[in-house]
C-alpha cells in the first residue's frame, strides 16, 4: 500500500476518533442526567414526576427507533443550524450526538435502577437531599455499570460514525466507501475494517478494565 493511502487511513482514523470523542462527550453530558431522571422520576421515587417521565420516555423511544441513516438525513436543517454545514466530520457530530444521547440515557437508567432501593431509603433516613443521594449514592454505586454503558455507547458510535461516511461525513466509513467500494480497492476496504476492529477492541478492553477496577461488589483477593 502506498504512503499516500496510508496517510489517508491515518487522517480518516483521526476524523473518526474526533467525531466519536466529541459526540460521546456531549451525549454523555446530556444522556447521564436524562438517564438518572428516567430512573428516579417514576411514581413514589426520588424525583417523582410520572408525567414528565412518561413524555421523556416517549421522546427517547422515538429517537431510538428511528434508523440512524434516516435520522441523519431528517435533521439536516438542524445540523446546518448548529454546524453551519451538513457535510464533513464536524457536521456529522450533530446526528451522532442526537442518536447517542437517548441510547446512553437508557443505558444509564438501567445501571441506576440496578442500585439497591434500600440504599436510597438508607440515605433518606440520614436526611440526605435528593441531589446528595444522586451524587453520593446512586452514581458511585452504579459506576461499574455506567462505565460499561459508556463503553457500549462509544463502540456503537464508532459504527454510526462509519455510517455517516455514506452521506459525506468523512472518517473511516467515508474512506471505505469512496476507495474500497467505488474505486474497487479491496485492500483499502480491508484496512478500514481492520482499523475499526482494532479501535472497537481497544475501547472495549479499556472500558472493561476500568469497570472492573471500580467494582467493589466483588472480592479482590
Amino acid at each position, binding site marked *: 500500500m502506498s504512503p499516500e493511502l496510508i496517510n489517508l487511513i491515518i487522517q480518516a482514523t483521526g476524523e473518526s476518533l474526533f467525531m466519536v470523542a466529541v459526540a460521546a462527550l456531549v451525549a454523555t453530558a446530556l444522556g447521564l442526567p436524562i438517564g438518572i431522571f428516567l430512573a428516579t422520576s417514576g411514581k413514589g421515587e426520588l424525583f417523582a414526576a410520572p408525567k414528565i417521565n412518561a413524555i421523556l420516555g416517549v421522546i427517547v423511544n422515538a429517537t431510538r427507533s428511528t434508523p440512524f441513516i434516516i435520522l441523519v438525513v431528517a435533521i439536516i436543517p438542524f445540523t446546518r443550524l448548529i454546524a453551519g454545514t451538513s457535510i464533513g466530520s464536524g457536521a456529522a457530530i450533530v446526528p451522532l450526538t442526537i442518536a447517542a444521547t437517548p441510547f446512553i440515557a437508557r443505558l444509564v437508567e438501567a445501571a441506576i435502577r440496578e442500585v439497591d432501593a434500600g440504599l436510597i431509603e438508607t440515605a433518606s433516613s440520614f*436526611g440526605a437531599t435528593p441531589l446528595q443521594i444522586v451524587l453520593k449514592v446512586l452514581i458511585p454505586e452504579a459506576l461499574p455499570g455506567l462505565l460499561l454503558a459508556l463503553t457500549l455507547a462509544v463502540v456503537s458510535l464508532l459504527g454510526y460514525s462509519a455510517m455517516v461516511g455514506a452521506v459525506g461525513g468523512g472518517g473511516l466509513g467515508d474512506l471505505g466507501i469512496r476507495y474500497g467500494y467505488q474505486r474497487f480497492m479491496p485492500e483499502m476496504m480491508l484496512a478500514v475494517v481492520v482499523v475499526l476492529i482494532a479501535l472497537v477492541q481497544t475501547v472495549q478492553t479499556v472500558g472493561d478494565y476500568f469497570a472492573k477496577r471500580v467494582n467493589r461488589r466483588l472480592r479482590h483477593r
Partner: protein
Amino acid sequence: MVRFEGVEKTYPAYRGKPSVRALQNIDFAVPRGSITGVIGRSGAGKSSLVRLINGLEKPTTGRVEVDGRDISALSGRELRLAQRSIGMIFQHFNLLSSRTAAANIALPLEIAGWSKADIAVRVAELLDLVDIADKHDRYPSELSGGQKQRIGIARALATRPSVLLSDEATSALDPQTTRAILDLLANINRELGVTIILITHEMSVVRQLANEVVVIDAGDIVERGHVADIFTHPKQAITQTFLAEVLGESIPISLASRLQEAPVPGGQAVLRVLVRGDAGDTVVARLARELSIDVALLSARIDEIGGQRVGSLIVGVPGGDATAAQVLAYLSQHQFSAERLGYVA
C-alpha cells in the same frame, strides 16, 4: 423519647389494589434511654411503624413525636435536620459497596456537612466504639455479616442520635454473631444513653436485650409492658406463640407422644406453669409443703429476662383431676400463669 399519639396509617388504593390500613390506634411512649422491643409477625405493621418514626412516611392521622418534636409535621430541611437525631440499622446492612468501612461511616457526616478533619476524627472514634478499627480501609465485600452490621451501627451513631432504630438488625446473622451484636447494642445503650427501638419477629432478641416490649398484630398494639411481665403473664394468644418459640418447645417429645386428653386412672395431670422471680424456684417445694402434693418435675427451663428470672415448668400432678384443679387454683391465687396440657399414665 418517642411518642405515638392516636396514630393511624392507611396506604391509599393504587392500581386496582384496595387501600391497606397498616396501623391503627397506636398510642405508646418509649421512655428516654430504654430499650423497647416491637415484636410482630411479618406484615403486622412493624416496618410502617419504623418509617413513621424516622419521618420517611407520614401518619394518616395522629402524631409521632421524637424528642418532643412532632416529626410528622416536619418537611424539607427541618425534617432532614430532625432525621440526624435518629439513627437506623438494617437487616441487610445497606452499606455502599463502593465505599470502604470508614467511608461508609462518614456518609451521614458528609450529608450533614461536617468538615473533612472532623469526619476523620469522628470515624476513628466510631470504629473503636464498634471494635473494628483494623477494618478502616476494607470494602463491605471483604467483611463478614457481623462486621458489616458493626459498620452499620457505627454509621447509625455517627451524628450522635438520641434514638437508634433497629429493623431486624440481627435476622440475617448466625446465633453467635447475633449475641455479639446484641451485646454491643446493650453497651451502646448503657454508655451513650441512646434510646433503642428494636423491631423484630424473634422473641429471643427481645428477651436478650429489651426492657419494654410492644406486641403488634394486624396493625394493632395487642399487648405492651415490661419484658418480664409479658413473659410471665402473656394475655394474648399471639404473645404466647412468640413466647413458646423462645422458651423452646417445652414439652419433651417423649412426653408429648404419651399425652392424652382424658384423665387416666392412677396417672398424672400434666400442667405448664410460667414462673417469675424468686417465687419460681420454689414453686414445686411450696406445693409440696402447703398442699402436701408431691408434684413431679417433668421438664423445666429457667432464664433471666429483663433482669428477672423467668421460666416455664412442666409438672406432673398425681391423684386425679380434683388434685390438679386444686393445684391450678393455688397457682392462680399466687399469680402464676398455669394451664393443663393433658394427662399421662
